[in-house]
């Protein structure tokens, strides 16, 4: 990405490893409760960290319920509404190795912000087939929605200001499980 990234410094820790794991465990239980079990559910994670979170949720549900739910990967670059505004589009590919027809798809993302990514993801999923329903799980809801989108499962509601950013760090990518609020460094 060629978007100039200002340096950020950590302002506060929001979730530590234990709290992050607890939030995912709770979401897994809520998914089973709301859907009356794990029948016909499937996870679709948004690149990159949503996919990792989707795999973790799938493992939790396997531990609780004994059912292994499939996990797909969605790249929404081709569905963005700001192509040409962000520099070179980096396509990393969609890989959903199962049919989503007649499934309840649980879309997983790390941070829910304006809702534009989710809007693109909904279009992308519907282009792949007709699921019974789509539900949205995200680890952090930081507010500032620009579209009428509401998550079904939330790890933590986190009021933020627009100039701050929320970084979800996961062991698989960042070597640690932690969520922090960052703010731009003053010049």
């Amino acid at each position: 990405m060629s978007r100039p990234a200002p340096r950020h410094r950590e302002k506060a820790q929001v979730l530590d490893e234990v709290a992050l794991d607890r939030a995912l465990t709770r979401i897994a239980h809520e998914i089973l409760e709301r859907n009356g079990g794990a029948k016909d559910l499937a996870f679709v994670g948004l690149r990159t960290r949503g996919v990792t979170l989707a795999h973790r949720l799938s493992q939790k549900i396997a531990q609780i319920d004994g059912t292994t739910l499939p996990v797909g990967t969605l790249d929404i670059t081709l569905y963005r509404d700001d192509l040409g505004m962000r520099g070179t589009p980096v396509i990393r590919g969609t890989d959903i190795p199962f049919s989503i027809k007649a499934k309840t798809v649980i879309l997983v993302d790390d941070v829910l912000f304006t809702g534009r990514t989710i809007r693109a993801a909904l279009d992308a999923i519907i282009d792949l087939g007709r699921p019974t329903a789509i539900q949205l799980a995200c680890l952090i809801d930081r507010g500032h929605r620009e579209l009428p989108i509401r998550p079904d499962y939330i790890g933590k509601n986190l009021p933020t200001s627009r100039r701050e950013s929320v970084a979800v760090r996961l062991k698989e990518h960042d070597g640690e499980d932690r969520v922090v609020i960052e703010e731009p460094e003053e010049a």
Partner: protein
Amino acid sequence: MGWTRKDLLTMRDLEASEIVLLVDTAASLQEIAGREIKKVPALRGKTVVNLFYESSTRTRTSFEIAGKWLSADVINFSASGSSTSKGESFIDTAKNIAAMSPDVVVVRHSSAGAAELLARELPCSIVNAGDGAHEHPTQALLDLLTIREKKGHFEGLHVAIVGDIAHSRVARSNIHGMRKLGMTVTVAGPPTLIPPYVQELGAKVSYRLEDAIGDVDVIMMLRLQQERMTAGLIPSLREYSRYWGLTLDRLAKHARPDVLIMHPGPVNRGVELSPEVADGPYSLILDQVSRGVAVRMGVLLLLAGRKGGDGA
């Protein structure tokens, strides 16, 4: 890293990192071909014009499919049945098309440099889909994508390009691309069809098919254009086929057992390739065609989606 060019004109101009970006983007887009609904909205509202002054099946069709799968509006222009037959010049036709504000113009022309001329004259992005015996970058890119999928990497691979090197834009684009990616290229053909400058491009030269295919990972056979015979460059098709035709027998005797066979098409069956080889297990000819759509999607997406493009 990123894509900043307005146009895709030659492989010669590209950096290795840009070639890899194009191949990676195409590889990620291949999944669309397997979908039930083969359409994504990435280039909605963009217009792609195919401006073809030479006949083409694969290239024009695959640019058209690529544009449509990305939701662009694709307009096909071919020289026959247009104002060209009323005597309008190439550049006038192109300027008239540009006046209709397309985002990308894909051009094929029998003159080397035609795409570059348009790139200079027109504000929209230009893709060279073959200009004379000069370059055909999207063909080289799809060849590279096909090779990487089968072999997993580029560095260190050895490719033999066999046939009419002198008149082949495919050979030239591939030599440039492959050399930049650390591959070894041997060109082979009758001396009349090997241009004097190939060694300057970093390719080795061989004048015997048996020697050229001995130690290579990929054999790329080129189409022999029948006009070369009337021009006196080869004595007869039969003789060409006898010395330069790739047959099962020759493959078994001289090539590695895992060698891959490529051909940019259209194939002269029984001339440069025997039908058993063209349809055989190591033939990637149809893989190349499928990859062609993905490569052209990648090219259109990177050109139309680059920053400072028209925005969204």
